[in-house]
């Protein structure tokens, strides 16, 4: 059952990831990215992180991607025109990527040859209580610093997008 669910979410994630990278229109890429985030949320549930799965949907798919979709609509971004890329990139691009992927996969298999499995319900430390406890005791300083970071981002975004009412 775990393997079936993993395969469903993983194949959805990979297909949506390919769509993000290959579609001409930015809106299609944005919606495919939302699909990736949704399937990753399902994978987080399988890995025993229910709070992060919900946070992924609320923050990433429900706020950040809405921002992307708004910007695409406001700028009326049309389809990308075909660029005159170099022939080298078109010939060696995909094989280079496959080589990078193979290298990463080989490194992973070298590091984790043990047949350790991930089972649903094998890790109970992802409850909101556990995460809240760790954030407010052990990781309190990074938490406060990220709140200031978000404040800086708000001020920066307002300053950049500010329009004088004249």
């Amino acid at each position, binding site marked *: 059952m775990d393997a079936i669910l993993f395969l469903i979410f993983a194949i959805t994630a990979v297909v949506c990831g390919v769509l993000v*990278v290959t579609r001409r229109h930015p809106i299609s890429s944005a919606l495919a*990215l939302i699909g990736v985030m949704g399937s990753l949320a399902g994978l987080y549930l399988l890995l025993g992180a229910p709070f*992060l799965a919900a946070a992924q949907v609320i923050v990433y798919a429900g706020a950040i991607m809405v921002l992307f979709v708004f910007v695409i609509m406001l700028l009326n*971004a049309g389809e990308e025109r075909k660029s005159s890329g170099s022939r080298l990139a078109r010939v060696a691009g995909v094989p280079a990527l496959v080589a990078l992927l193979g290298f990463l996969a080989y490194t992973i298999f070298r590091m984790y040859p043990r047949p350790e499995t*991930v089972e649903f319900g094998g890790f109970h*430390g992802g409850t909101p209580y556990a995460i809240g406890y760790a*954030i407010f005791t052990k990781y309190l300083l990074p938490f406060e610093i990220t709140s200031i970071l978000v404040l800086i981002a708000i001020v*920066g975004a307002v300053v*950049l997008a500010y329009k004088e009412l004249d």
Partner: protein
Amino acid sequence: MLQGVPLSWYLILSAILFTLGVAGFLFRRNIITVFMSIELMLNAVNLSFIAFSYHHKQPDGQIFTFFVMVVAAAEAAVGLAIILTVFKNRATLQIDDVASMKN
């Protein structure tokens, strides 16, 4: 085999998504699609963190993912504001056209 999935499968999936993000970042010409490829890379890394959090049976990986999400949100907000400003000044979203500082 039906009960439990090897941990390396999650890491392979994270690697695939990261590679797709790198491909989009390098090959696409639209600013917004490049930005979305960055978000795809960040998501792949999040999956990796949570897989390792399961492996070590500690919530620390999930907390790092939480912080990565917050940073990605801040970065998306400021980055999209920059994109809006670039569009206001150059009227184009192709990164080939904004490659030089000469207006």
